[in-house]
């Protein structure tokens, strides 16, 4: 992540005039606002940021952030974002998308992106449904539940995206809740600051199609104590960090602790920073070992032609390998 100079940037700099067409009360608004606040708070200038979106209600987010915005293809947000980041490592790259986008059609990229640990942040808007196609079950909806537009109860099981992120190798994993903007801003900032691949799941009520896990449900309105179902693990002293150079045992203990948290659900839903692995090199670092000068001399920036538009590549050594001489 590249913060060129910490200047005063206000949230307003990240707001747009383009009309927003999410449903009233949609959880996406909280996430959008958090992204804007987080970026402003980090002092990054809008043109230094590229927000990539998948396809879905969530995928429209880039339209609503005043930064370079790329509305990609369903399921492909991560490779698009990774290509931009590797080509211009100075960019701050955010990828956002829905649970269908990320866990169904995009699951293969999710798993394999974890292997790379590229320095970008992926925010998944988990509303358990396919919002934009009118409420079908998404891979995060538990088996047997029947949200209101399903003709039958959900016949497929749920993917635990936190577990999947850990298994895939994401080095920063957190979870937020769309109506806890204060925490969400902090989480996004930490995720962006983390040098490596960050995964932030956001629990996002969809008032239009998900009549089960609503704002009220997350807020615990139906519970005897009326307390929210979600809680902040950091408030309970949870330490997610696997420090640099940690030994195998520490790593395993941290992972075990994470697995336990990742499986908590129902009346206690953990939010906060759940795993930070400082033990893994970034893809950019690995590239720099191959390519001297990377990232300074990046694919986007290195000269390829002279003033006359002639190629500046000197390939003599490669020709010599093949030459009959």
């Amino acid at each position: 992540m590249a913060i060129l100079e910490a200047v005063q940037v206000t949230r307003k700099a990240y707001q747009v005039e383009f009309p927003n067409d999410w449903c009233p009360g949609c959880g996406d608004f909280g996430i959008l606002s958090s992204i804007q606040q987080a970026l402003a708070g980090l002092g990054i200038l809008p043109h230094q940021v590229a927000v990539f979106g998948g396809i879905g209600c969530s995928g429209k987010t880039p339209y609503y952030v005043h930064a370079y915005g790329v509305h990609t293809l369903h399921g492909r947000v991560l490779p698009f974002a990774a290509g931009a980041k590797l080509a211009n490592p100075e960019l701050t790259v955010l990828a956002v998308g829905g649970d269908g986008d990320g866990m169904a059609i995009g699951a293969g990229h999710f798993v394999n992106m974890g292997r790379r640990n590229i320095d970008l942040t992926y925010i998944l808007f988990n509303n358990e449904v396919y919002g934009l196609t009118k409420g079908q079950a998404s891979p995060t909806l538990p088996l047997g539940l029947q949200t209101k537009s399903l003709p039958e109860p959900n016949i497929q099981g749920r993917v635990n995206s936190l577990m999947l992120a850990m298994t895939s190798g994401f080095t920063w994993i957190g979870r937020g809740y769309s109506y806890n903007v204060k925490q969400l801003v902090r989480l996004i900032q930490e995720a962006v600051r983390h040098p490596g691949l960050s995964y932030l799941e956001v629990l996002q009520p969809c008032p239009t199609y998900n009549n089960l896990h609503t704002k009220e449900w997350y807020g615990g309105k139906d519970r005897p104590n009326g307390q929210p179902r979600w809680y902040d693990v950091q408030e309970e002293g949870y330490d997610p960090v696997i420090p640099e150079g940690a030994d195998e045992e520490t790593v395993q203990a941290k992972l075990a602790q994470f697995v336990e948290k990742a499986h908590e659900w129902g009346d206690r839903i953990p939010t906060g920073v759940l795993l930070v692995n400082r033990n893994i090199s970034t893809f950019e670092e690995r590239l720099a070992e191959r390519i001297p000068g990377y990232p300074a001399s990046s694919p986007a920036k290195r000269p390829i032609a002279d003033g006359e538009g002639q190629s500046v590549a000197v390939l003599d050594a490669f020709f010599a390998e093949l030459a009959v001489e």
Partner: protein
Amino acid sequence: MNHSNSELSWRVGGPQGSGVDTAARMFSYACAYGGLYVFGRREYYSNIMGRHSYYDVRVSASRQPTSHRETVDLLVSFEAETLARHVLSTVAGGVVIYNVKDEDTPLERITFLDRRLREDLTAHLQEQGLPPTTAGLLEEARRRGVQAFAFPYDEIIAALADKLGVHKSVAQRTLNTIAVAVSIGMLEYDAQCLVKALQKIFAGREKIVRLNVEAAELAYEYVRTNFDFEHFAFRLAANGLPESPMLLLNGNQASALGKLAAGMTFQTYYPISPATDESVYLEGHHTFPLRQGGTGSVVVVQTEDELSAITMAAGAALTGARSATATSGPGLSLMVEALGWAGINEVPIVITDYQRGSPSTGMPTRTEQGDLLFAVHAGHGEFPRIVLASGDIVEAFYDAAQAFNYAERYQMPVIHLLDKNLASTTMTVPPFDVEAVTVERGEVAVAVPENGHDPFPRFQPTENGISPRTLLGQPGTLHWYTGGEHTVYGRVTEDPAVREQQMEKRMRKLEVASREIPPDEKFKVYGDASVPLTVMSWGSNKGAILEALELLSADGIAARLVQVRLLWPFPAEELTPYLEEANPLVVVECNYSGQFARLLQECTGRAPEYLILKYNGRPMSGQSLYEALKRVHAGGAERRIVLRNPLE
């Protein structure tokens, strides 16, 4: 009966993994070091070890051969399957060298011999009263005037092991060198050229060089003392080397080098035959000096699939990096959705498609020109793209570079069609001129920091449809990209009038490209430009057609070739005069349905009188085309001529 300095068609065969390629490289370099022109053609199975592969090297002292021959002058073999498959292709006056062990192997004992071929061979031998064995085949060959020599590979290897005091298994590794040395001996060619070839190929591994040189000497000696090759019609003599040393390379390498010359800095790939070698070559050649100092480099990313490959390349292109991906048919099939995204977002990316035997998994290591109509029409809906196809290795280099200029000038995806034939064909070519490679980046919006926060009209309609391109990260040109229809700022819209405006803007670029690209980048005319007998073709058939034209010309038949290189936008207008004069018009392509002919008719209404097709996964040879064209010229040939060779 010495044909010293004449042309030669040499073939070596053996199981995949046994070093057939290395043998061919040795022979090729040995010839090239003698100043001879070399053309190499490789056939192999989609298999790692055991199945049959073979390599044709065609050599000439006087001219660059540009296609293989389906007949063999000198066949070298060290196992029975090679005999079974290729003895029948050896010409009268030619020579077969075989391992003495393989003298009498029943065909049915050859595991990987296709049942169809075994049955055909057996029937053929039976007709001649011969047994279904290698002995039968060798006898059949002798009756046809082929000389067959048994070579005691094992003895030579034992002698080598003895001489150098190495283990037999070590000596065994020189099998290919021995086969090549035997050939060199038979041709009375300069043994020093082979030594040079060995030094080139095993450069830096002195021990191995020595081992192989020793092996070569033993084999060479054996041939010179034991074989009676008086009646062998072929000899090779070294020419002088040309002033600037020739390159010996294949199409994968040519394309990779063209991309590096063009300043490509980002390439993605997912492994797939026959495209992988290009990317692996790039991975092994990722840094090099720059003319003005500093280091040039290319980031090569192996992705998890082709969906990722093309979208990652597109993401990189948005930052201004010259970005590409290389694949083959199945991969291209997976890239279709993203191709449309690049189209509607006006992203310059290059997709190199190495066509292979298809459909589906097809014949991954065989050639075909089966993706043309797909490349032109791939994707739901309508968006502009450029499709170009190279005719040979030299074109592959320059086209690979030019593809980026097209992509950036017109801000659209460019599909560069190559094929397995070009990918694995090796040829001597004059060195490429990197400084002649111009880099045209098209219209790029300059950063306008004073624009501050205002969105930038990235997709502003212009007369030629081209709007200045922006780069992610650039100050003052903030805007959006989307696969949805969009406003000038790249925001999604469903407004009918804006839709029309943007659709028309995008499609206009194609007309502009069609107008701007000079005719000689669109197609080339070869042969006698004024005669009516017109061969039209595209892609890697070029070499075979040029040879066929020469053969026809020797028969006093004048013909011309119109090689179309820009397939989309199709140069309908410029081709019209040629089409009008053409009589007959013969379209030549390596596919079943005459895809080029269909495209031609789609764009011009003109159908060819004759179609010459081949779709068995092997490339056309000049000779087979020559014969077909002779029949066309004589009149009365069928409209659809299929070139077949069950022995390939």
